């Protein structure tokens, strides 16, 4: 029986090639999209699942409230460590202090590389269960040690055995390699750990870290924990909540609350709003999940529509089969079997498409996914997926076709009733509703990105290069280097700053000024700069004056941005004196000398933060900012800069970033979403059009005789085209009116997350509607014109 069904199904497929290509091709495309999205979602959901102890690992987070605003983040103060170890240790298996990811120069002989990694406490390798290739797992026991990832070890030592060898770190510290561990997989939060060095070393490296040992208000570090086996993350969170308030009652006014964020939430649910966890990347998982389901739905609708449209051709077969003894159930099985065959075929093609496009997709989505050939789970899920799709796509035709009465179809009096096309029409409406909504959504995402990209950023980012200068080698050399670089002709102006142009690295409070409201808890972005900062960036002075080397008093001067003027409530900012709010051992009073235009240093979607630019008195900047000579090409300039750099810092790898590129990275996530949704939209539209194309050809075929009669009676090609197209265009118009409110609602919600956002204009919707309309006309016209031009004598004779 089964063999027979399959045989018939196969012959049916090979006989009607165009139909098969549309049907199988469309379904394969839809499945490929769903498969890729499925792989992507799986990868997202399994971020960090590499770590065996993932259910027990957490990061300590902190919420603090300032002026009624609660901010939440992973930054914690250093004394928390001792508090945990002394008072709370029975809740934990491991408590691990860690630095932020810090790039360091690692040097072995002549090979010098910049590598990312962490200064972290000794239990980390055990907690993360690092796979040790060489050396010992407890490799951070001594202070001057370093553990390397396999790829870093290979890059630095090539074929040598690195264990026991000494690396020069930042050209001043000798660190002995104690272990080489397998690279931590890409889809984990520690994939950027090229090296691990002891926390104990970190504490000795910088004065400010040393000094922070007892300060509960210096939130500059992070802490990872693995909880004890007999407790839960929620329970421990509850216990440690008030630790900071207990240990430093002075800070109670900020209401600091500590809690644990479980490892499974780090990647997908790390956003907080007013102290509440509000998701994060998980929204994209939902977004693409929904897109995947819809695209598959579109493909299934094609299948249903084309199968039922063909029903008249197969009605006779149903009649014959019933008259020679087939029961309805057997026919249902037969049609479901055919559906299964088509879906299976489509799945095989879809797997092919996925395999071929995976590397491209990986690049687009910044992933390292592989096709799970050996995963039983994948094949199991796929089988279920195939069965569900086959059922979804095949059930309607199966039930519909098998319901025909043999007398009707065999007598030749069978006509599909007036309303038999209704379900088909509804399905077309669903398809186009989804497509139009996708078009609108994609256009709005693109618009929002462009809107933010076109936002005035306050400085000139073109032709601006930054060089990291965090190593001690650069200390005290700024003046010299500025002269050298300007003399070389590659640079017209240069400054140093304590943070990159595109970031805020430091926030401060504890100041007093005239008219400061009682109890106001200020929070100001703090950047230390050399006097040429505004000039090198092209930042405009809107009041007062820039720093000048001519005035010695400028070393206590401050430039503030326009937002800070409003934030501090200053009427006449220039000349205002800033004093320390801490009256024991206060710093020297500072003076506001000028106001600069707001520049975007953080998210281009958010308002500019109130900020101060203060004179860098210690020549301790983290970046050189260089304005390139506009009369030379960028590559010439860079070559010259590199040469000068190498002359003065032969031990340090030359690294540089174009600020405009760095700034562009702020859009990476949105651009990625925009591109992906653009591609998926295009595919959704393609699938819908493919289905519409197939459907029109069937309708045209069905109405061949009618068209013949009409033509004999004098209908023009236009009349016939109009007759055939009208029905479909009506459906598309209905779809548009359903899609627009849905798209408006969803996209408006999406935009609410961006304080700086595009205003939704009516023409976006009109454009999407016109686009869908034109697309339909083109698709339908292909068949309609062909049918309209056919010779009526031919079509009438075949009856």
């Amino acid at each position: 029986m089964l063999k027979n069904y399959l045989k018939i199904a196969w012959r049916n497929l090979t006989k009607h090639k165009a139909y098969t290509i549309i049907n199988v091709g469309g379904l394969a495309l839809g499945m490929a999209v769903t498969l890729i999205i499925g792989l992507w979602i799986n990868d997202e959901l399994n971020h960090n699942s590499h770590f065996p102890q993932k259910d027990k690992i957490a990061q300590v987070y902190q919420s603090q409230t300032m002026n009624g605003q609660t901010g939440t983040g992973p930054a914690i103060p250093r004394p928390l460590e001792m508090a945990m170890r002394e008072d709370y240790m029975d809740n934990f298996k491991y408590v691990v202090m860690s630095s932020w990811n810090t790039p360091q120069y690692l040097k072995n002989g002549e090979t010098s590389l910049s590598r990312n990694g962490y200064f972290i406490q000794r239990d980390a390798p055990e907690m993360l269960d690092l796979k040790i290739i060489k050396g010992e797992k407890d490799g951070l026991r001594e202070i001057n040690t370093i553990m390397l990832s396999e790829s870093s070890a290979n890059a630095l030592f090539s074929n040598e055995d690195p264990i026991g060898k000494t690396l020069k770190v930042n050209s001043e510290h000798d660190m002995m390699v104690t272990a080489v561990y397998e690279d931590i997989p890409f889809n984990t939060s520690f994939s950027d750990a090229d090296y691990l060095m002891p926390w104990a070393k970190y504490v000795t490296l910088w004065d400010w870290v040393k000094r922070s040992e007892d300060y509960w208000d210096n939130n500059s570090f992070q802490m990872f924990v693995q909880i004890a086996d007999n407790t839960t993350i929620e329970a421990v969170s509850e216990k440690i909540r008030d630790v900071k308030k207990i240990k430093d009652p002075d800070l109670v006014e900020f209401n600091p609350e500590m809690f644990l964020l479980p490892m499974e939430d780090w990647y997908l649910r790390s956003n907080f709003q007013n102290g509440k966890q509000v998701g994060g990347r998980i929204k994209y998982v939902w977004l693409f999940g929904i897109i995947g389901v819809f695209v598959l739905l579109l493909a299934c609708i094609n299948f249903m529509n084309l199968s039922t449209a063909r029903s008249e051709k197969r009605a006779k077969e149903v009649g014959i089969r019933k008259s020679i003894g087939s029961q309805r159930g057997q026919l249902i099985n037969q049609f479901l079997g055919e559906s299964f065959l088509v879906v299976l075929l489509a799945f095989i093609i879809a797997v092919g498409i996925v395999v071929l496009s995976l590397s491209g997709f990986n690049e687009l989505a910044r992933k390292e996914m592989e096709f799970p050939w050996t995963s039983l789970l994948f094949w199991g899920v796929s089988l279920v997926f195939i069965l569900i799709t086959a059922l979804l796509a095949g059930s309607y035709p199966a039930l519909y076709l098998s319901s025909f009465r043999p007398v009707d179809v065999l007598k030749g009096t069978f006509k599909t009733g007036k309303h038999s096309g209704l379900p088909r029409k509804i399905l077309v409406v669903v398809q186009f509703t989804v497509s139009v909504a996708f078009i609108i959504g994609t256009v709005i995402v693109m618009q929002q990105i462009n809107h933010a990209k076109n936002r005035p950023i306050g400085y000139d980012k073109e032709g601006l290069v930054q060089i990291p200068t965090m190593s001690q080698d650069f200390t005290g050399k700024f003046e010299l280097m500025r002269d050298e670089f300007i003399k070389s002709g590659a640079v017209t102006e240069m400054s140093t700053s304590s943070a990159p142009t595109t970031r805020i690295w430091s926030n401060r409070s504890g100041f007093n000024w005239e008219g400061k409201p009682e109890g106001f808890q200020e929070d100001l972005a703090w950047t230390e700069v050399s006097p040429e900062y505004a000039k090198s960036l092209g930042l405009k002075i809107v009041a007062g004056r820039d720093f000048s080397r001519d005035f010695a008093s400028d070393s206590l001067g401050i430039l503030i941005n326009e937002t800070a003027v409003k934030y501090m409530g200053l009427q006449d900012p220039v000349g205002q004196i800033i004093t320390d709010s801490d009256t024991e051992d206060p710093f020297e009073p500072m003076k506001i000398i000028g106001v600069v235009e707001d520049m975007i240093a953080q998210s281009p979607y958010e308002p500019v933060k109130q900020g101060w630019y203060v004179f860098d008195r210690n020549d301790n900047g983290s970046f050189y900012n260089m304005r390139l000579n506009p009369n030379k090409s960028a590559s010439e300039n860079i070559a010259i800069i590199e040469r000068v750099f190498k002359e003065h810092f032969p031990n340090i790898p030359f690294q540089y970033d174009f600020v405009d590129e760095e700034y562009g990275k702020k859009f990476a996530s949105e651009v990625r979403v925009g591109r992906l949704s653009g591609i998926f939209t295009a595919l959704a539209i393609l699938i819908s059009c493919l289905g519409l194309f197939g459907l029109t050809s069937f309708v045209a075929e069905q109405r061949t005789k009618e068209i013949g009669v009409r033509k004999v009676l004098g209908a023009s090609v236009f009349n016939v085209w109009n007759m055939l197209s009208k029905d479909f265009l009506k459906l598309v118009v209905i779809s548009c009116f359903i899609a627009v409110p849905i798209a408006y609602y969803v996209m408006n919600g999406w935009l609410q997350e961006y304080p700086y956002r595009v205003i939704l204009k009516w023409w976006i919707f009109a454009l999407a509607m016109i686009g869908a309309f034109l697309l339909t006309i083109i698709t339908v016209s292909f068949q309609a014109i062909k049918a309209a031009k056919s010779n009526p004598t031919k079509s009438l004779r075949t009856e």
Partner: protein
Amino acid sequence: MLLQLNNIFKWVQSGGQRIFLLKDINLEVQEGEFISIMGPSGSGKSTLLNVIGMLDAFDEGEYHFLEDSVHNLKEKHRSNLYKEYIGFVFQQYHLLDDLTVQENLEMPLIYKKFKGSERKAMVADMLDRFNIVGKKDLFPAQLSGGQQQLVGIARALISNPKLILADEPTGNLNSKQGEEIMDLFKQLNEEGVTIIQVTHSEKNAEYGSRIINLLDGRMI
């Protein structure tokens, strides 16, 4: 007695009026009969045949087939009944276009759940009996009308039905092919198969043992 129709009525509702397709049909058919149903177009010949073949329902009356009361049976039992005892032959042959001659013959056996080896033997027998062994791998479109109808009859016969219902079996054939088919029916009848045919042709009706005339759904 093979089947019996008592006071069968069938109608359709049209504008508040009943239009009768079959009106008070009483018919008794014995095993081994060869009956021809005649009448002008629209007189209800095919409807009657479909009612007898259980492909079509009726609105009033009783229908007994062997031991069973068809009017009381559910769809599934009815289809089991006709699957078991009745074979259909159509004017337009109604072979499955996508299947070869051999596969077309096999089809009813599949629905009756015969085993593969049995099916093969029965199909081979039938091909042999109808002298179409050489055509077994051809598709219907590759055969002449007469040959297609031969296959149609072979398919109707393959599961050894007690009754063959033929709706104008020669209607699409030329006279020579038609004669051959009618001869075949006569021969089958002599071998014991009950046959009921619908026909327009007086000549074909002569092959039968009894003629029923219909006019406007009524037996005359």
